């Protein structure tokens, strides 16, 4: 079966075959994200040699590392963006992509996420939001919906979820978009755009975790979760005219922000040029 997939799946050329099959559970949205990312890379004809993929810890960190065939840096919990910052400064002409989960990037790594957006460093972050800590056994996350059940909120979650995309947009990112795994084509287009933007870009993907989240919240089947996404998705244009009460429990999808701002590595190199010029250190 596995062999058949490898020989017929056109994106297989982008995968590290010796690392397959993936560790993802059946029905996980991670496969959709990997597929969308591979399609975006393929669509833009980006040579994987010009790509460095960085991830943190957790299920979603596995999506592209080790499976994607590029230079991959699998880092400590929450720190992927900080590691990627060093990589990008070293290789400003390469595409540096971070793929990781909500717990990793927005909880323990929230600080790095905000400051990378503020700095507007040219990194593309694909943040997979499945509302839960999957790999550690389904504990409550800062993205878990209000009232949902998890292994560490067995009665109900009494905390409010973090609106990641809006927060990152407010912090200063150049490009922010949110889609769900039920919006695959839009997702691919957004990843493509994010990769082309010169600046910090975030694509948040609402993704299903039927095993850890769905099972405890009356959505055992992956398809039920996808139907939930479709039913509750609101395009960003429509959401602008809706009250916070109306938006409670909804997923605002689409482009949240798309703007030009000075980019960090460009500014850094410009600064170095100016300093060298000022001190007369340029090659005569």
């Amino acid at each position, binding site marked *: 079966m596995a062999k058949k997939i490898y020989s017929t799946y056109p994106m297989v050329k982008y995968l590290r075959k010796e690392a397959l099959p993936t560790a993802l559970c059946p029905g996980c949205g991670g496969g959709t994200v990997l597929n969308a990312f591979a399609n975006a890379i393929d669509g833009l004809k980006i040579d994987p040699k010009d790509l460095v993929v960085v991830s943190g810890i957790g299920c979603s960190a596995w999506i592209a590392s080790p499976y994607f065939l590029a*230079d*991959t*840096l699998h880092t*400590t919990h929450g720190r992927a963006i900080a*590691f990627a910052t*060093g*990589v990008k400064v070293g290789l400003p002409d390469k595409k540096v992509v971070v793929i990781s989960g909500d717990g990793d990037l927005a909880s323990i790594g929230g600080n790095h996420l905000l400051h990378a957006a503020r700095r507007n460093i040219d990194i593309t972050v694909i943040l997979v939001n499945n509302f839960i800590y999957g790999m550690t056994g389904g504990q409550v996350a800062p993205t878990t919906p209000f009232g949902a059940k998890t292994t560490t909120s067995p009665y109900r979650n009494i905390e409010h979820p973090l609106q990641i995309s809006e927060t990152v947009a407010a912090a200063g990112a150049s490009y922010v978009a949110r889609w769900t795994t039920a919006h695959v084509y839009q997702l691919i287009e957004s990843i493509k755009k994010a990769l082309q933007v010169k600046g910090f870009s975030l694509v948040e993907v609402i993704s299903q975790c039927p095993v850890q989240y769905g099972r405890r919240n009356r959505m055992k089947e992956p398809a039920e979760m996808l139907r939930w996404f479709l039913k509750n998705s609101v395009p960003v244009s429509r959401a602008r005219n809706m009250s916070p009460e109306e938006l409670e429990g909804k997923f605002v999808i689409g482009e949240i922000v798309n703007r030009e701002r000075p980019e960090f590595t460009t500014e*850094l190199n410009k600064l170095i040029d100016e300093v060298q010029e000022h*001190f007369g250190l340029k090659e005569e």
Partner: protein
Amino acid sequence: MIIRGNEPDQIRLIKRLYKPGNYFMQGNEAVAYGALFAGCRFYAGYPITPSSEIAETMARELPKLGGYYLQMEDEIGSIAAMVGASWTGFKVMTATAGPGFSLMQENLGYAVMTETPLVLVDVQRSGPSTGQATKGAQGDFFQARWGTHGDHPIVAVSPTSGQDAFWETIRAFNIAEKLRTPVVVLFDGVLAHTREQIKIPDVSEVEITYRKLPENEEEAKLPFGDPHGDGVPPMPLFGHGYFTHVTGSTHKENGLRDVYTPEVHDRLVRRIHRKIEKNREVYEKYEEHFTDDAEILVVSWGVTARPALGAVLRAREEGIKAGLFVPKTVHPFPGERMRELAKKSRAILVAEMNLGQMIIEVERYVNDDVLLKGVNKIGGVPLTVEEILREIRGVA
């Protein structure tokens, strides 16, 4: 592939910017200039007393050399960015102090596991916790050794003066590059802020080494192998099309994760230990004064080695056969030499600005018939010649 800072142009820039001669500067500045001479072209840090002048000097000087200064959002991000940059071919450094060093420990372990060369300067300050933030101390001896989790080797060097800090920082870079490993510089708040005369040499007098890069495709495919038998794998840098996979998880020679096979973990972690153990000549360094006929041996390190030398000289004037042993690389401890010296000594005094840390290491190499005693002081004020001399007289 090229290690950034290795371009011929860099030597020209260094010669142009830093004329050889005597300068009056802080220990912290000496560390920064040492790093610049060693080829460091990437610094990521977060301000913390008493280390901040290192960051300030790097922020001012790095752009002149075409290097990069990054002020990160915290210490964790700083060391993370360093690891990322090191894999793109930079020699990298950060400087921190007490609490910042604690925060960096997890990623220091990551650097050990992924064999990433970097230099981490810990300007030791008084603790625990915030302690006396502006005061010096020598309380991080074991944090450098055992701060991160798991079985891991570490190399830590410790300068004894501002001048020494310049050279020891360069040596730290050379060790990091040769052994593909993080190196800790255990500096301290006293020397960091002491201004003294520091001689800056001509860059051609400085020995600078660079990490081993893969010689062919085959070597590049085994970023954690051991093709040369010295335990140090060549490092395939990012961005050269090798599709290298780097992970802090237990990994095979090709970099791919395997956390289920006991032998894979055993092989990896033992090799990382072996490359440090077997390459002792790369990093082992100590200083000795009057040890030939010493009956009373003072063992000291870092800032305290200076008053200790003063005390030994004064004791000699008084006819006491005192000697001084100063480990310059404090981890791995120069145990063999310590054992030899201990055999010849009647009494050993270990002087340090803490309540007794290096003395625990010394004790392992000393027989029961030798009087072993700590000379300890905390509170942020260094030990004086008088205080150490009094202890020498006490056992004479």
